[in-house]
């Protein structure tokens, strides 16, 4: 055994004792943050975090939610000020949601997105939601229904909303992309409070429109469904309409929306083609779902109804906000790059006057497990 070998051996033996250096950190030394709520405060921001804590009073450890809040000039300042309150370092690797109050959103959400992207820990696929009436702090303090951790519940609610399609499924990295995409304005989910069976609980209440990074207004749940139809984001949900006193619910299985710009009479027209596969989910029993004529009637009326809804919604956005949340500008940029270069600067005004051509094609696949109505006499 020569000297250099012993020397290397000693170095390695010392190395094994200094493994506390580097990024070695024990999992129990961290305070995992499930969610963050950001409000305005006189000096800047008021940040509330929901920490996953373990209740060790029983033999079976139980997860409890612990809320702490600090104030600071910036988001990062608030987070570092938290060290005064907790012995452990906050850990954002598993943070699933950021709740932003209306006031903060009106001032701009760039500082928050900047922190999420710049810091190594937070995941960029978390959700950012806007609380419309209450402060973010209040929302975070509401009682959770399904889990002990409030923030994870919001996250699950948004993900499972794909079966309903009434809330935009926009995570933080998509939000950042949308902010940076010309001809597209972002829409992110909103949350509100509702008293349900005597329990004050959180509820998803639609979407918030942003002009770049500042809040411009709110959209209702049904508006978001139209928005998701146009953006080709429908993954499920219902389409409900009336035929002469009969309310019919169609269950959407598959939807494909294609938006193409067209030049008609020297005028830019957006052509929206919607292809939806549905099945009859519920009727009040007055309508025949067996014969082709009747099915075709349902189909025609449903198509007209969907087209009307979407046209109506686009009109409202054009007149009320004038913000291209549908990404029409972006589609023009991809399909007609030359035209886009000409109109890019005054796209906002062009959007307000943009002609829309909606063509819905609804294919009714079946009528569920019933082919005759229950009221029908044998």
């Amino acid at each position, binding site marked *: 055994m020569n000297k250099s070998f012993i020397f290397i051996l000693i170095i390695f033996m010392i*190395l*094994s004792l200094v*493994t506390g250096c*580097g*990024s*070695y*950190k*024990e*999992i*129990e030394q*961290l305070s*995992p943050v499930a969610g963050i709520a950001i409000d305005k405060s006189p000096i800047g921001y008021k940040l509330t975090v929901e920490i*996953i804590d*373990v209740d*060790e009073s029983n033999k079976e*450890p139980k*997860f409890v939610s612990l809320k702490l809040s600090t104030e600071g000039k910036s988001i990062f300042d608030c987070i570092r000020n938290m060290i005064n309150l907790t012995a452990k370092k906050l*850990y954002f*690797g*598993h943070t*699933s949601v950021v709740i932003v109050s209306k006031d903060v959103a009106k001032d701009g959400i760039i500082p928050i997105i900047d922190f999420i992207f710049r810091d190594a*820990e937070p*995941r960029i696929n978390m959700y950012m939601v806007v609380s419309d009436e209450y402060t973010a702090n209040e929302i975070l303090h509401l009682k959770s229904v399904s889990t002990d951790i409030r923030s*994870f519940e919001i996250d699950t609610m948004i993900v499972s909303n794909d079966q309903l399609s009434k809330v935009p499924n926009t995570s933080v990295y998509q939000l950042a992309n949308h902010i940076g995409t010309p001809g597209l304005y972002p829409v992110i989910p909103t949350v509100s409070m509702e008293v349900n069976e005597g329990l004050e609980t959180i509820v998803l209440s639609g979407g918030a429109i942003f002009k770049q990074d500042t809040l411009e207004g709110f959209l209702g749940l049904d508006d978001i469904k139209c928005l998701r139809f146009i953006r080709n984001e429908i993954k499920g949900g219902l389409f409900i309409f009336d035929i002469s006193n009969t309310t019919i619910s169609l269950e959407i299985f598959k939807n494909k929306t294609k938006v193409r710009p067209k030049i008609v009479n020297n005028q830019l027209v957006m052509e929206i083609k919607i292809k939806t596969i549905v099945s009859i989910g519920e009727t009040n029993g007055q309508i025949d779902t067996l014969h082709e004529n009747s099915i075709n009637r349902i189909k025609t009326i449903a198509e007209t109804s969907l087209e009307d809804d979407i046209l109506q919604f686009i009109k409202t956005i054009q007149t009320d906000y004038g913000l291209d949340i549908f990404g029409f500008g972006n589609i023009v940029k991809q399909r007609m790059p030359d035209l886009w270069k000409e109109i890019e600067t005054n796209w906002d005004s062009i959007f307000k006057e943009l002609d829309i051509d909606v063509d819905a094609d609804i294919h009714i696949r079946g009528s569920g497990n019933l082919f005759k109505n229950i009221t029908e006499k044998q």
Partner: protein
Amino acid sequence: MKNLQDYNISYSLDENINLMKEIFKDDNTLKIKKLQNQFNPNMVCCIFFINGMVDENIISEYIIKPIITNRISSNLNQMDTFQDQIIMSCSSEKTKDISKLVDAVLMGNTALFLECENNCLIIKSQGWQTRNIEEPTVEKALRGPREGFNECLMVNLSMIRRKIKSNKLKFNFMTIGDITNTDICIAYIEGLAEEKILENLYSQLNAIKIDGILDVKYIQEYIDKEPFSIFETTGSTEKPDVVASKLLEGRIAVLVDGSPVVMTLPYIFIELFQSADDYSLNYYFSSINRILRIFGFLSTISIPPIYLALVTQHQEFIPTPLMMSIYASRISTPLPTILELTGLLIVFEELREAGARMPSFIGQALSIVGALVLGTAAVDARFVSAPIIIVVGMSGIAGLITPNLNGASNVIKIALIFLSSILGLYGYIIGMTFLLIHLFKLDSFGIPYMSNLTTFNMQSLKDTAVRFPAWYMRLRPRYMTNNHIRSNGGKNHE
């Protein structure tokens, strides 16, 4: 002390007796018996043998009885008469060489001296107790042949010969060990074994200078080309059917007297995962088993370092619910993860070692201590966190699947744990990269260690992770031999 070369056999029987007494001084196992023919009292001779090494029936029936009861006349060339007409033995040899004589007597042969003859006759009379042919405990078979080698070289050779009845099967003897004089046998099939490998093996065996060979492992370590590697480049088995199948593939076997383990070479990495049972069971089933073994090896070396890296450095990689449960169980445990992990791995290895060495009647106590005290109680008392027990348990079970690799996987595991405690997953990846580089650098007698694992040729892959049906294995391993065709592949399957 006089050298054996300095002694000479004289014409006087009494002098020869004294000579033998001097050579075997203080060795009371030497038996000296003087014999006299009953018809010719002048006909005196003396036999020498080592008590315990000989079959006494052979000596009394076929050596002593003919000498005493036959009518023997004194004449010249008496020794030749004895060799050809009197002694009833299948093997006898005349010699004047005293060292050869001593070696022969020590191996259990009987030496016969005659009056007025300056040479002696060595008569084969070996006979000693050997272990019965039993099933080897480390290579248990579910279906295939159950016999295993024992410590007697000739018995072992007979077991191989019984499987390969061909004059092409060659057994070459040599002796290694200055003091032990251990018999070594090199077995191969002529025409299949590569000449170059055989020459290489002979030159390496001839170069070994050692006082004694007690096990085949001595030779394995001497001829290992990478003596510091944790992987063995020669195979070991205790089953004649395994040796026979390797010989048929063009490999060479080395048997050592006194060792039930037979060395086969060249040896490649995938053989570590092959088991004799694979060829006796349905090939779908044995393929699943073999994939399990490979997976077991990978998991036994990977689970602890990856867990350590994830829990201490990359908490964001763990799915949130799992992270929460690890978090909950880690709270208020005193030791850092690295100490918990190494400590419990050591405990596991201690349990394994204790289980292998202790008398079997303590077994139950050991499992109670192991399972209850170290498992549940340690977690309940918050000595260690529960996931560590699971991680160490999974790694331990996976390691037991491949007993051949137990030593190597323990070394790799410790190195990877060390690396991932410093560098996290980077350390793990660096360690695995070095492991792969090392494996691809190794070779066994010129055959790359990772042969057959870097190709998409179906005939080369037939016996790797998946065991193909027997009729598909038409060719012998390409790298092992020049004589490829082993079967017509079965006409039904062409």
